[in-house]
């Protein structure tokens, strides 16, 4: 009897385990309805898998048979969230997409290391014809015999479909705004308030005409694509090389899970995905249907996935992975020594900065200042505080990733109209140094003295200890990470030395984003990486209604502060504002930049926009980002673009 009970219990346990397994397995067969009966096929597949697993001596998660033996093994990140060209917004996803799709244009690296945009699926990147209203029509002619990886012909209609789909409000892509220069975009994304409010009391908005057919994108015939932009867009060709602009085919993407399964992930690029072992490895093999397959030298790529820098380093050191895109921060110094040739520091288009909430009153309670005077005082104080930080110490001793100390918001690496001169080298209009502060090591003392002078003006100052007395205490908000914490601690100590108390508060990532966006902070860690090589990519985020306006410029109480002046009459505009609000000045200049077609004037406008932005003191840049990676010295022909997209197709591995 006892045995029977034991047996029954064992059976129950087994059923319990199987039940879990079954409910899980049913999903693979019938993704849309998990409750549906498991299809015979799926069941068979599960059985097969189980049988295979049983035969293995050691537990092996990766099916080695799916891995390309002749491929290069690399690791750029962990499992991507999405590799649908329209939906991806991550740099690692972009790298995967440029290997499987080919757009109108592509990035190329010249022998001298400089980057150019070259035609990919088209005969040439046309200049475009200017219409009377200033809009520009581009007519592209596709190459002959373009094919998808499944052999079907690729047409201009596929581009039209893909672009409209990516920009469509229904798709709700993070990068839908990459199409905002195309005629019809503004009309399509126009919203109105419905009059209702959501649970948090914010007004509910809805689109007026969310119809992507409004976009001026048209396939005239199978080989001709016409697109009209609102005006001449200086970075238009670069947009054409951006993953969001890659073509997709209607019948493929109608299956919602198409981008998660190699069998349905059909592209037109240099590679096709042959296997995706989730969380482990994505394998790609050369696509013989790619129009320029002859120039692709690497027969296959295995993109391993890991989110642990230590783990990546281990695999790099034992030779399994030839490139890793992340290294443990505390190993950086040692790795630079040990692997001088393999350890690469590449500039990135982005800035790490400290952002103030402009609605946080930092003046002493009895200052008696109001309106413009108070705002000017706050701006002066914030800018003074920016002078207190030793950015060389931050990059050399804390961040340690080869970053450059920042003296402007627009990142180094973004160029002037000539495409060569660094935009940041002309920022700030100062003699002897570039940017809005002198961040060289020997300017430390003079910066400090200048900052003290300003603080003395507004606060009680103790000469004996050289500290201010009545500065309201601040709280520095950052997202939980050792690196951000170390920088926060340094900022805290630098402020403490002049008598300012700054507490540190860390929040988990998602909460942090929310808090910062809502403006529920006094001062916070911030950072921005560009989407394309044009300073507007960093400047337009500070307009009043921008969703990324974390400093709350022109929002809340700051909305009515009339403290800003703008005079563009010398550039041929009739804009002349004295003591205007943020919306009357900054929003105006950004709109002017967006509609400006003269490159010289446009860049001058962008410098002035940055001047205005920096005059608020709301932004305290600390350093320009860098991309660190390690690449085995046997790999030749590899390059990484300024946006961080990594190109493996032209690689060879020397034995």
């Amino acid at each position, binding site marked *: 009897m006892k045995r029977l*009970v034991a047996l*029954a*219990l064992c059976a129950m*346990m087994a059923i*319990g*385990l199987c039940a*879990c*397994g079954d*409910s*899980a397995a049913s*999903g*693979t067969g019938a*993704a849309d309805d*998990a*409750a549906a009966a498991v299809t015979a096929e799926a069941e068979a597949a599960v059985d097969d898998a189980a049988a295979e*697993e049983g035969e293995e001596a*050691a*537990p*092996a*998660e*990766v099916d080695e048979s799916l891995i390309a033996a002749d491929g290069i093994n690399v690791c750029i990140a962990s*499992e991507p*969230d*999405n590799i*649908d060209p329209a*939906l991806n*917004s991550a740099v690692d996803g972009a790298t995967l997409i440029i290997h499987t799709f080919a757009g109108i244009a592509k990035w190329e690296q010249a022998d001298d290391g400089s980057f150019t945009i070259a035609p990919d699926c088209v005969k040439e990147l046309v200049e475009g014809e200017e219409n009377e209203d200033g809009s520009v029509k581009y007519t592209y002619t596709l190459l002959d015999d373009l094919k998808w990886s499944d052999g079907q012909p690729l047409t201009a209609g596929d581009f039209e479909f893909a672009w409209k789909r990516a920009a469509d*409000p229904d798709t*709700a*892509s993070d990068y839908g*705004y990459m199409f905002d220069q195309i005629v019809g975009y503004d009309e399509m994304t126009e*919203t109105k308030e419905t009059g209702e409010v959501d*649970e948090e009391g914010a007004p*509910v*908005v*809805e*689109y007026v005409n969310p119809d992507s057919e409004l976009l001026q994108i048209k396939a005239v015939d199978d080989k001709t694509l016409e697109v009209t932009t609102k005006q001449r867009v200086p970075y238009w060709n670069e947009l054409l090389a951006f993953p969001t602009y890659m073509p997709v085919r209607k019948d493929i993407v109608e299956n919602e*899970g*198409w981008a998660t399964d190699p069998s349905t992930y059909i592209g037109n690029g240099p590679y096709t995905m042959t296997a995706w072992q*989730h*969380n482990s490895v994505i394998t790609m093999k050369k696509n013989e249907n790619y129009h320029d397959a002859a120039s692709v030298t690497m027969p296959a790529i295995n993109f*391993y*996935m*890991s*989110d*642990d820098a*230590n*783990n990546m380093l*281990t695999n790099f050191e*034992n030779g*399994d992975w030839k490139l890793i895109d992340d290294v443990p921060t505390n190993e950086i110094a040692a790795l630079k020594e040990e692997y001088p040739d393999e350890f690469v520091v590449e500039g990135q288009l982005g800035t790490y900065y400290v952002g103030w909430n402009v609605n946080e009153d930092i003046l002493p309670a009895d200052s008696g200042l109001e309106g413009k005077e108070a705002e000017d005082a706050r701006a002066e104080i914030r800018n003074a505080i920016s002078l207190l930080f030793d950015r060389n110490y931050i990059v050399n001793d804390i961040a340690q990733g080869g970053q450059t100390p920042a003296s402007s918001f627009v990142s180094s690496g973004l160029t002037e109209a000539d495409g060569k001169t660094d935009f940041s080298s002309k920022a700030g209009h100062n003699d002897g140094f570039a940017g809005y502060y002198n961040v060289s090591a020997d300017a430390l003392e003079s910066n400090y003295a200048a900052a003290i002078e300003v603080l003395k003006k507004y606060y009680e100052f103790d000469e004996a200890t050289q500290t201010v007395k009545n500065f309201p205490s601040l709280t520095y908000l950052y997202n939980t990470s050792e690196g951000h914490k170390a920088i926060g601690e340094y900022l805290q100590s630098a402020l403490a030395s002049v008598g300012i108390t700054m507490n540190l508060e860390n929040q*988990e*990532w*998602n*909460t942090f*984003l*929310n808090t910062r*966006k809502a403006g529920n902070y006094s001062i916070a860690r911030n950072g921005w990486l560009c989407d394309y090589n044009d300073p507007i990519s960093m400047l337009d985020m500070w307009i009043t209604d921008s*969703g*990324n306006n974390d400093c709350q410029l022109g929002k809340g109480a700051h909305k009515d502060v009339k403290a800003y002046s703008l005079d563009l009459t010398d550039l041929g505009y009739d804009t002349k504002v004295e003591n205007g609000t943020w919306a009357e000045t900054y929003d105006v200049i950004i709109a002017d930049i967006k509609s400006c077609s003269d490159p010289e004037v446009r860049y001058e406008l962008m410098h002035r926009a940055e001047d205005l932005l920096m005059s608020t003191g709301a932004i305290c840049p600390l350093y320009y980002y860098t991309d660190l990676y390690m690449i085995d010295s046997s790999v030749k022909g590899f390059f990484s673009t300024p946006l961080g997209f990594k190109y493996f197709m032209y690689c060879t591995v020397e034995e």
Partner: protein
Amino acid sequence: MNPKTISYIIKRLILAVFTVWVVFTLTFFIMHAVPGGPFVGEKAISKAAQQALEAKYGLDKPLSTQYFTYLNDVVHLRFGPSLKQRGRMVIDIMADGLKTSAKLGVVAAVLALIIGVVLGAGAALRRNTILDRIIMVLTTAFVSMPSFIMGSLLLVVFAIKLKVLPANGAAAGGLILPIITLMLYPMAYITRLTRSSMLDVLGQDYIRTAKAKGVPAGKIIFGHALKNSLIPVITYFGPMLAYIVTGSLVVEQIFAVPGIGRAFVSSIINRDYMMIMGTTIVLATLIVVMNLVSDILYKVVDPRITLE
């Protein structure tokens, strides 16, 4: 089987369903109360786009409506789509993770049990010898060392210094180190448990009687002593499973094992509501069921225990 046992099992099953429901409800409301959301990113999408996405996944409805809709879905085993990995279903992601985690957990549990009982019995039978001392010192070390330290240590020695095993849990043979890391604590615990309970049993009158009657030593050990000394080990079955499930969260992170534990952690960071609920329900069900089974087994091996 006596009716009392059956009614006990039924009672416990009802309680199990209730427990999972409580966990479900708490998680659901706490998750929505936490600031942030699945569509919040470093680069903000427009308000209208965000509202469109929320409408697509039904997140624009009142929380109570969402709760009942989702509860109904879960009862019908529909876990919905992932909010972060758009295009993939939660159940597919969980299936991928669960396959790996189950392998990791089951192998670790079985090894812990076998090695633990053998070492424990060995130590008890060779009490106060060198073997006993060595086993006791080692198990003390394993019990007191947290898994993240043990994991890192094994990683450094075997993957980095000796380079005999891969550091990546997804590579061939990559589960060996995670299994060892996960197994050591319960193994050491079981060893100590078996040893003390075996010593206790060996001192009992019926063992002395058996010896006096001339029963061969082997039969005494396997037929009488070991069997009875395993009762405490069985009671440890439930806690061990809980340890393995929670421990795997850490171990999967260290060794980059693509299991359900890692999916669980990242879903929380991403506020992937569907994924959080799916993984919570699966893990909660697993623990509740295993605890129930261990309680029932307990009764089976020791008839003196009454189930009420």
